[in-house]
């Protein structure tokens, strides 16, 4: 419930993510933990680091915004609190080319693809998640341990 509450407050699907690749070095390394927010009134600018998800792809990607194009916002969308529609192009700091190949057919990222903007990070902490994904037994062991604790404790 704390996770769900955090997601609602930050307006982001997944407010805490782990960096899986080295495409943002030397800013972020594999295993860093990133904290994201996605406020609707946010205007993304060149230089912001965003996490986005291409529809049909499971894994979110964290790269820097290279270009933005702001579209005119309809009055009814503004009243509804929807974000200003923007078209974004991103590139990883450590990559030679921009992300156009990663977009799988679409030309620009839209706001609905963005999970959030990076606000802060913690180095190395994400390795726990990477370990649990690579060795699922760790995940089950942790869950089993937590369950056992809940059963043994009184009140």
């Amino acid at each position, binding site marked *: 419930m704390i996770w*769900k509450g955090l*997601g609602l407050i930050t307006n982001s699907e997944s407010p805490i993510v782990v960096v899986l690749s080295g495409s943002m070095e030397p800013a972020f390394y594999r295993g860093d933990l990133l904290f994201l927010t996605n406020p609707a009134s946010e205007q993304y600018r060149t230089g912001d680091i965003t996490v986005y998800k291409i529809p049909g792809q499971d894994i979110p990607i964290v790269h820097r915004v290279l270009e933005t194009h702001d579209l005119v916002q309809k009055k009814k969308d503004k009243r509804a609190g929807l974000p200003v529609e923007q078209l974004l192009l991103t590139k990883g700091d450590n990559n030679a080319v921009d992300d156009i190949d990663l977009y799988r057919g679409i030309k620009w990222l839209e706001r609905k693809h963005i999970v959030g903007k990076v606000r802060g990070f913690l180095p190395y902490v994400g390795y726990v998640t990477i370990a649990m994904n690579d060795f699922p037994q760790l995940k089950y062991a942790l869950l089993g341990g937590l369950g056992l604790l809940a059963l043994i404790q009184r009140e």
Partner: protein
Amino acid sequence: MAPSRKFANSGRDPRTPSPSRLDGGSSATSSPERPVGPLSIPMPPEDREVIKVNNANLTELKHALDDALKRYLGRPDLFKQSYLHTDVRLALGWLSVFVAAGTALYGYKVEFEESKPLVWVGLLSYMALSVIQSLYAYFIEGNIVFVGRRKTFSKRIITERITISSTTTPVKKSKPPAYSLSLHYVRSTSGGKSLLAKGKTQSHKGYNAFFDGLGTLDQEKFEQWVGGLVEQAMQGKTS
């Protein structure tokens, strides 16, 4: 005078409560229909299990004494335990678990932007339930460990209600940690309309009086102490 009479009676026949108590004939200090107190119903030794706890853990000590108290007073012919507080807390707890599970499942199935309003509802209800549960436990349940009722049918239907709260006072300088009990007893008839007796007793004793060095509980000694307090409350004494 009252304590010596009890010991003489229980020496006669340990299996049955002494009949004079039920008739109330020789009882000089209470009404003729006074119901049976816990000291007159002895516990057969076969029912006992050895209770051993970790001496150093105050919480375990308190829980061991609370459980022994519930077992002692919950015997047949004695009080019937009321599980209202436990039931309310369980209901609130289970409800919050279902709300949390439902919200999580819904958030997983439905896309983020669409799911937001209902997830808000789920989150706020979960928080409300947790807050209500904590407030209930703190204010309404408080230190209560046992709520019991008993109905005896002598000439009229006599209803008794007893509420027992227990607290622990931790160790202070050279005083050992102590277990303090406070009992509130009410005896009434005709559906609670006419009050027959009302008593409030309070007492405390160090844990070292009941637990030995290894952590074994001296159940008989504890039961004598509790039984004495209950009978004091039943006599309508306020102390």
